[in-house]
């Protein structure tokens, strides 16, 4: 496997036009050897899918990941019947044989929706009032799917399933798949970027780096976490006492010596290595440049409600837009703290408030830059929450929940699917996690059935082996 992967890896990184190496005196030291030229001559292919399976509708994905299990019943899935049933036992016909998390062995009583809903926008999408900005500004951009179900009832495997299509670890995250298949449009930035913000409510559920791991794909497809504190990307800062010029000189010396070694050893891997040092050096400049939002105009700060740099969700939304502009393929923003086992009324409202303006701003901002059309926004959790009370909160729930999409060819102002009148089971136009993956791949020009990677002898796919489908009803 290794040489094959090395080869792909090399190709992916070498097949970028227009990289000029800043190595000092390289030409004279290298003489006639043209390993750098060779590197550039490999062609313009970026991803491994060449050409794409069909014309893409979107180029990139920004996934707003509400970690912890956002309650669908206080946010996007209005269930008046549940209010009528408040305090009464959930009918056994609904819950019998169903998987239950923390409510195991307890009384299962209905718990009324804790916030009111109303129709918004021209499309009249029914959304809870805890999303004043999102609902009032973007209801007509949203494509809401209320009939999701997933396979895992606990956070850790549910995250892993949502991100990799499998509960068993070791599979690549969707961002890694995309980077592998499509490459990225940037050379100065990782192609798959993750940012995490933490709210004030809920349990601060842990999030494993597994969620952006490249699994069995080579390491270069791994998601890179951009951090709120310290170096935004690990080790992107020069060592203390080393300024840009000195760093440049060290990198140049490395390039020269590597070039000389290549003359002697004729090792194609060396050319790749030289390329990686050049990219690393550039990243040292481009990442801080990206993170520095001070030059954004005032109206942008007003729009997002942040001046940036505070590690908030809104701040990450602003950075996501900047990353999207720079050609990053897959951007994932986690907002962790939707795990509202108690006080779901206050906590869902609080957490929604932490998210509301940022997401509305992001959609608005992408729209005004004409980028929403080829950027897919995904908004959702690893699962939903029970219609049954857990004290004054709700437990984990896998049988029905909501996600929504915007941009990238998803139908704007559109609702699809439904749960039963309790909000328990997805019953109408049921959509699986694999269906979502297949649909997203489709929008990016990829046939999910043809996009595979050999692992343990199998053509492994993001969408796994179970049957799934592109949900054509969601896309225009």
């Amino acid at each position, binding site marked *: 496997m290794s040489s094959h992967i090395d080869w792909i890896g090399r190709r992916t990184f070498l097949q970028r036009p227009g990289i000029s190496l800043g190595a000092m005196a390289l030409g004279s030291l290298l003489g006639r050897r043209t390993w750098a030229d060779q590197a550039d001559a490999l062609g313009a292919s970026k991803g491994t899918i060449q050409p794409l399976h069909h014309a893409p509708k979107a180029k990139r994905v920004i996934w707003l990941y509400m970690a912890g299990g956002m309650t669908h019943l206080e946010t996007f899935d209005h269930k008046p019947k549940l209010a009528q049933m408040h305090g009464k036992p959930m009918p056994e016909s609904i819950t019998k044989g169903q998987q239950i*998390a923390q409510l195991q062995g307890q009384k299962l009583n209905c718990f009324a929706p804790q916030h009111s809903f109303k129709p918004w926008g021209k499309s009249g999408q029914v959304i809870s009032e805890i999303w004043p900005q999102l609902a009032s500004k973007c209801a007509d951009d949203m494509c809401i799917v209320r009939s999701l179900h997933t396979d895992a009832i606990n956070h850790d495997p549910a995250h892993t399933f949502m991100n990799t299509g499998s509960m068993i670890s070791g599979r690549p995250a969707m961002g890694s798949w995309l980077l592998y298949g499509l490459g990225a449009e940037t050379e100065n930035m990782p192609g798959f970027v993750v940012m995490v913000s933490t709210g004030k409510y809920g349990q601060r559920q842990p999030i494993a780096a597994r969620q952006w791991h490249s699994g069995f794909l080579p390491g270069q497809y791994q998601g890179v976490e951009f951090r709120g504190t310290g170096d935004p990307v690990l080790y992107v800062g020069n060592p203390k006492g080393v300024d840009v010029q000195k760093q440049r000189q060290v990198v140049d010396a490395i390039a020269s010596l590597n070039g000389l070694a290549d003359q002697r050893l004729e090792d194609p891997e060396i050319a790749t290595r030289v390329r990686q040092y050049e990219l*690393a050096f550039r990243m040292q400049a481009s990442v801080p440049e990206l993170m520095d939002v001070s030059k954004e105009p005032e109206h942008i700060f007003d729009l997002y409600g942040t001046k940036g740099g505070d590690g908030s969700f809104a701040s990450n939304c602003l950075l996501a837009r900047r990353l999207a502009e720079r050609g990053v393929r897959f951007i994932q923003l986690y907002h962790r703290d939707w795990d509202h086992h108690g006080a779901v009324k206050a906590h869902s409202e609080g957490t929604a408030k932490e998210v509301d303006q940022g997401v509305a701003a992001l959609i608005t901002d992408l729209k005004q830059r004409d980028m929403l059309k080829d950027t897919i926004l995904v908004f959702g959790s690893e699962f939903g929450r029970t219609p049954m009370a857990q004290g004054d909160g709700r437990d984990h729930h896998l049988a029905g929940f909501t996600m929504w999409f915007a941009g990238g060819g998803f139908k704007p102002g559109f609702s699809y699917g439904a749960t039963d009148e309790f909000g328990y089971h997805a019953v109408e136009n049921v959509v699986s996690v694999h269906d979502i993956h297949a649909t997203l791949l489709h929008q990016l020009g990829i046939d999910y059935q043809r996009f595979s990677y050999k692992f343990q002898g199998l053509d492994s796919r993001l969408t796994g082996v179970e049957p799934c489908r592109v949900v054509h009803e969601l896309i225009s």
Partner: protein
Amino acid sequence: MPVPRPSLGRGLSREKVVRKGWKCRNRLFFWGRAHPEVGSRSGLRPGRAAGWFPPEDWGPLANRNGRQASRQACKQAKWATRPIAGNELNVELKNQSKPELSRMLSVRRPILRKLVATLGLLVPTATWAQDPISFNRDIRPILSDNCFFCHGPDKNKREADLRLDTNEGLHGIASRPGIEGKPGVVVPGKPQESLLIERILSEDAQDHMPPASSGKKLTAEQIELLKRWVAQGGKYEGHWAFLPRKVAGQAGGAIALSDQQIRDRIDGLIAADLTKQGLVPSPKADRITLLRRLYMDLIGLPPTEDQVQEFLADNSPDAYQKLVDRLLASPHFGERMAMWWMDLVRYADSVGYHGDQEMSVSPFREYVIRSFNNNKPFDTFTIEQLAGDLLPAPTLEQRVASGYNRLGMMSAEGGVQDREYLAKYMAERVRNASGAWLGITLGCAECHDHKFDPLSTRDFYKFGAFFADIKERGLYSGANSDGNWGPFVKVPTEQEQQELKSLDQQMLQVQNLIDQNTPELLADFDAWQAAQVPWTTLKADAIVSLEGATLKAMPDGSFLASGKNPSTDSYLFTSSQLPAGVTAFRLEVLPDDSLPGKGPGRAGNGNFVLTEFVVHHRLANGPTNNVSLANPSATYEQIGAIEGNPYGKWSAEGALDNDAKGRKWGWAVMEQVGKSHAAIFETAEDLKIGPGDSIVVGLWQNLDNPQHTIGRFRLSATTAKRPVRASTSLPTELEGVLAKSQADRSDEERAKLLVYYRSIAPRLEPQRTELAALRKNRDELEKRTASTLVTEAVPPRMVRVLARGNWMDEAGEVVLPAFPQSLATLTAGVTPDSSGRLTRLDLAKWIVDPNHPLTTRVVSNRLWKLFFGAGISRKLDDLGAQGEWPTHPELLDELAQWMIDTGWDVKRWIKTVVMTESYQRSSNAPSDVRDKDPYNRYLARQSRFRLDAEMVRDNALSVSGLLVTKLGGRSVRPYQPPGYWAYLNFPQREWQNGAGEELYRRGLYTHWQRQYLHPSLLVFDAPNREECTAERPRSNTPLQSLVLLNDPAYIEAARSFAELIARHTGDVSTKLEYAFQRALSRSPTDKEKEVLVGLYTSHFEQFKSSAAAAKELLSVGSRPAASDLDVAELAAWTSVARALMNLHEFITRY
């Protein structure tokens, strides 16, 4: 010297032999061990003779009762036409009595050797000639990839009832009486009449195979191959990896090859293919490259300059061999091998799921290192890990080894269901054991029959049932705080063991002194008894809660609070019955089930705070006097004082200060809730009340943190002589004894009192102090001693086949442990327990059975990769049908056989391989060779590859002189960026960098946090070890460059290296020479020197003009910078060192 291929003996074609074999199949089956290849060649070596049913048919065949199974199999119609070879063997064997044969074939190796040696038969096999199409090499991969999904082993997905993975599927079954025939899809020799070819070529979309919907498409080349194969007879073969090894013997029929012979054989097989491919092998590598290669491959560290010189100076012909021997004997060999093995058995220091809490298993790592260093036979190594706990009277080492079963991920996530996670853990064990030893993807069969290999869902669950006896929980609730992840053992080091022993002895001696009934002690005891005065429980005339809580009188004289739970409260207790001359009051706070956390307080955590204790003396005639109290003490005082507490703890003194230091401070017991405690307050003067007088005891509970009130309490008084201290208060059960007169006390009661008295006798104070000190030492030592998770067997849980892997499904068949059916056979040494159930020990023995077709191949293939950069079959994780056909199948079989021949001797196996010419070749090759064989499949040259993650680190530390070469021990924490663990929780954590030598240990000792693996290991492709990892990818990314350029660990290494360079005597050029030698074991070229002199000069000037920058650079890391060297010079050399340590050559093994 290439060894000539064995000639075809006796003029028999393989086909003829096969046909003859049919006649004898019954007898073969009778004793349950049949295989076409048995006795098929001269010079047989042991371990290949008996036992493996070829997967020509995957029908239900054998189980642990081989004889019965064989009979059953015999009855199965489909076996009737199955070709069986090895008839000569049968002829030979029929003269033996059946039981005798059975015995011979099921016992150990030597006997088997003897048996096989006596056979000495010659049966030819087809050679790996170029021309004939080989089903396994050429055809099976095409069919597997394109057809097996619908026409393969998975009965649920099978279309048209057609299998293309079996002989009968391809060639059909002839009709016989009672058996309905079935046509085949291959007509031997006639592609144009074969349905297989017809459907592939069909232009009718309905008929065309594979169907368009499958997304599969055959290439023209593949179609051509299929046609040629049919034209050549369309012969079927079982999957190579499931068939017995095919090894050639020597002329003369010796049993085993010598080391030299096997080396020649390896080189010969490679050379033969090179000739065939028209590739010219590269010459032997230069000595320095060889030396570095050996160092990296065998111990994972670079040679020092001295070691380079020593080797170069040794001109003896066996210099290389001596080096190999030396390195194999190095303790670092075990470390290098452990890096490899720990990926397979998913060694990690955290549990992986959800909170990813830590678990302690470092002694397991030490076991692995030690095993490789001691060259423990690999079969023993295997058995100990899978079933060390089931060995008779297992040693500590074997128990530690059994920790293998406990290395999987575990969860403490609330809401986890036991059954679900027990199913997950079992499935993971199946994936791991089948992956680590067998190289098969049995994990695929959790939800469905395997699509490509003959493994069924039942096989999966039966395999899982082997592990059903492991004591474990699905949900480790609470383990996030107490770290208790199930059975563990303490594994003291030798030194710790001795210390423990010595401490135990000392403690015993002191205890003996304490236990002695000396006359002096007994006299003291009597005096003490006489002096004891019991406490008198005070009876209440009235009791009231000022805030309205209900205080209920309990039979034992205590009061229990209930009802309203106010945020603060005061209890007023009035009593008119008091002993005369009270010297002290006692407040007991008592636990009660009705209280939160069992009390004694009413706060949510069971705590309370007594902010003030006051006593008033109310005279009968009216006035009330304050009773003066002093010398408060308590049996326990809460230690965790919040900011501002003037007492530094929640002491009883705070309850007796007239609130002089604030009304919210007082007595509390947080760490010890749920138990009874007492506070004692002396009266300043003996208190006596007159008739009609009463006292009022006030308990103020005014903490601003709400509801810290007392839940249950009792008040008493004593007239004993002062001092009266809480420490002298008796255990409750002894109070009753003391209340009796001495004469009324039974012997038993007296003995109890004496035991107690020993704990307070002033005479024994020195001994008690000594004992306490010893105990403390022992506790601390115990705490220091590493523990490790182990396997404990319990009565096995019931295992059901779970439909589609759904753990909630309870309808599935209950299964018992069994080997996968297609691989099952009678195995030497397998001894089911008394109930007939197979155990993990049986599983382990089956895995290392010399005849197991997979284990030796899998291990050899993976070891080969360590020394050649890629496996002989490149898919290290799958030797099944979807794996890659080995480039050198015979070579792989030879190596696998060599493992058996050497008695699973890993060091000897490795030595053999690294002594071959092929290993010693240069990794350089002319461009035509590289063009012809870009992936180096034919090994005309050595491979070159980047060092593994841990070795990238080790190499830098070693060159810098920082490396601490200590072996084993707990995991360590080198520098890691702050905040990297920010998204871990339960509990939240922050990485604390280690100190001192912990910062400079080898990479394999780095704390392995599954969810957030150390970033500089992760970036170089180290796996998070959540699952079995057979192969790490080798990526080459900008993030790797960032680590080597900027990670403080590498900067510190560079500046330490710079110190060595700066201290080396000579001018810049000489120093550079030294630096190159140390980093790369070679001299720089002029051009290389030119680049680095340029860098040095420029940076020297820059740092000279900015000493502050130089100092900053030299301050990276915790090791102090040399104070006697010029900072600008040192900083400039640091830049040079950084350049060298970032070179591709530096992190590559050539």
